[in-house]
């Protein structure tokens, strides 16, 4: 029983990270039809921004404070990077979907290589507050504290994004754009400005995921973003591209399946069963992937 509780909590924590990384991807895809490979570079950028900020702040400050500032800086960096990429590279290629994908592919290769050149390819250890590595006893299981943080952050992000989508004018435009972009344009609304906002939002979420993932892994490394991105892709596909709620459900499912299978079957089976889950979804409900309803 305690094993199960532990696995569920760790699975939820992992799913929370997947959701944070996938939410921006899903919004970007749903609204703009861009499969953003550079999302991995955004994630890496966030992780390094947080790590560098924590190193630059005076060592006398408590680690929690430095981590908080680091995460904030990471989110800002992610938003700026996302905005710049959209304005400079994506916007001129509007209507060339394949080319947009190709540009983000090149960006992801160059971004990882740049990080490797500057900071080396070896993982660099990240400081964590003492309590984040600790555990809490609950229902007879010793649960790692950091997972609660991830779940909390993901929950806040989910509610925040839902509120943004459903309560603001910007959200209205985004939802309308996901459903029928041409119609929104015909009504005289500048969808392009919304694209920039969504890309900045996605970049910020990706950077947040990167900063938290470096806490999860205990280190930053150039390849981190890419490995998280693959699962984010899978989550987005399973969740029905462009749907935020679908992404959340899929993220939780993927996280749980991965943890449970890794424990009860064998290490590595969990990662594979995620792909099997994807194949199953494709075989049973191929239509759910073609369009999106936010």
């Amino acid at each position, binding site marked *: 029983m305690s094993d199960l509780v532990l696995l569920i909590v760790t699975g939820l924590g992992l799913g929370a990270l997947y959701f944070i990384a996938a939410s921006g991807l899903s919004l970007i*895809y749903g609204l703009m*039809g861009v*499969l953003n*490979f550079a999302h991995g570079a955004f994630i890496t950028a966030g992780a390094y921004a947080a790590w560098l900020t924590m190193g630059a702040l005076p060592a006398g400050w408590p680690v929690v404070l430095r981590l908080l500032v680091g995460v904030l800086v990471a989110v800002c960096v992610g938003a700026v990077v996302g905005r710049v990429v959209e304005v400079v*590279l994506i916007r*001129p*290629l509007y*209507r*060339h*979907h*394949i*080319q947009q*994908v*190709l*540009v983000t*592919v*090149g*960006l*992801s*290769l*160059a*971004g*990882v*290589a*740049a990080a*490797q*050149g*500057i900071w080396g390819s070896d993982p660099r250890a990240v400081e964590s507050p003492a309590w984040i590595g600790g555990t809490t006893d609950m229902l007879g299981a010793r649960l790692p504290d950091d997972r609660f943080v991830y779940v909390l952050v993901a929950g806040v992000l989910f509610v925040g994004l839902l509120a943004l989508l459903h309560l603001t004018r910007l959200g209205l435009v985004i939802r309308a754009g996901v*459903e*029928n972009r*041409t*119609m929104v344009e*015909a009504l005289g609304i500048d969808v392009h400005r919304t694209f920039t906002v969504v890309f900045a939002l996605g970049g910020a979420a990706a950077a947040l995921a990167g900063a938290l993932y470096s806490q999860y892994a205990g280190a930053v490394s150039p390849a981190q973003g*890419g490995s998280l991105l*693959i699962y984010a*892709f*899978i989550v*987005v*596909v399973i969740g029905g*591209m462009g749907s935020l709620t679908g992404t959340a459900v899929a993220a939780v499912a993927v996280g749980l399946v991965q943890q449970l299978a890794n424990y009860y079957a064998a*290490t*590595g089976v969990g*990662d*594979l069963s995620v*792909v099997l889950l*994807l*194949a199953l979804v*494709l*075989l049973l409900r*191929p239509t759910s*992937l*073609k*369009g999106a*309803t936010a």
Partner: protein
Amino acid sequence: MTSPTDHVTDHPAGVRPAGEDLVGDDTTGTPPVTLGEPTSPARGPGRLLRILAPLVGLAVLAYLPYVAVELPGVLPDRVNGPGSLQLLATCLVVGGIALSYDVLFGRTGLLSFGHALFVAAGSYLLTVSLSTWALPLPVAVLAALGLSTLLALVVGAVALRVGGIAFAMVTLAFAQAASIIVMRNPGGVTGGEEGRPLDRDAVPDLLVGVANAPYRYWLALALVVVTWVAVAVLVRSRAGHAMAAVRENEQRAAVLGFGTYRVKLLALVAGSFLGALGGVVHALVLGGSNPHLTTSEFTLSLLVMVVLGGAGSRWGALLGGVLYTYADARLVEVSNAAFLQGLPDVVRQVLSQPLFILGAFFVAVVYFAPSSTSRRRA
């Protein structure tokens, strides 16, 4: 979902045909479908040149192991030195693999991110069947090719249920799963991060050892020739014409009565077979299987090669593959170049990464010449 304004969009809401992106702003004014190879009107001398030029090039390449000239800065040692020949052989093998990827991307318009899976399958199945299963070389090659093709059939059948960008994501996921399996090293079969070396006793002596580099070079050249001819035959066949039709406009091809699913599956299986062949030769030339072959990064670099060279053209894909591999191996020297010494450390460190230069160059090419990356011949 359905609104009275759906007619505003080109396609019914929610339906995103896979070919849409490649045809983009294809208007009804253009001729419906351009089939097959560039129909060059050249007859007589022009045609002769088109046939002769590759043959002369091939003869020159085949003669290289007898050329004992030093090319400082271009090749690591003499042209027929083992280091140079190994580098050239690697370039040719990757060029052949890029050619096989072009069957999917350039010829059929399938944006697959899983091609590495089949190349790696060819490579690993060969090394594993030689050492773990102790099969003789011809049987091992056949087993590697057969099993890889079967894998392509299964993966393709599932992944092609979706089109366009979703297809890209699904193939990526499958390739990633394979990458995970290889890295986990189940039962010590794949060798994990170390890779799996080629069993030297199981292959002919001609392919082993530093002194025999010319033979490996010729093997790589043979791969390029075989792949080249296979692609040429394929694109001129009925199936090749159907593939071109799917690439130009999938909906139109479907309306014309092509079974687009079967055409795409055929393209995927044929491309994967050639890719697996490339993987087999890769393992023989490089003396083993490297887990780098399984990574999504490898597929992405194949994509970069094909796009840089020119999608949908045999010369383009081949040259793209060869030059990319060459640049990847030789660009490291750029960071030591004298004219860079004055630059700040950070800039030098970044420029010392070949992938950074190639990635940035790729972005620039796509950005400044977006139409060059998808073949439009209308």
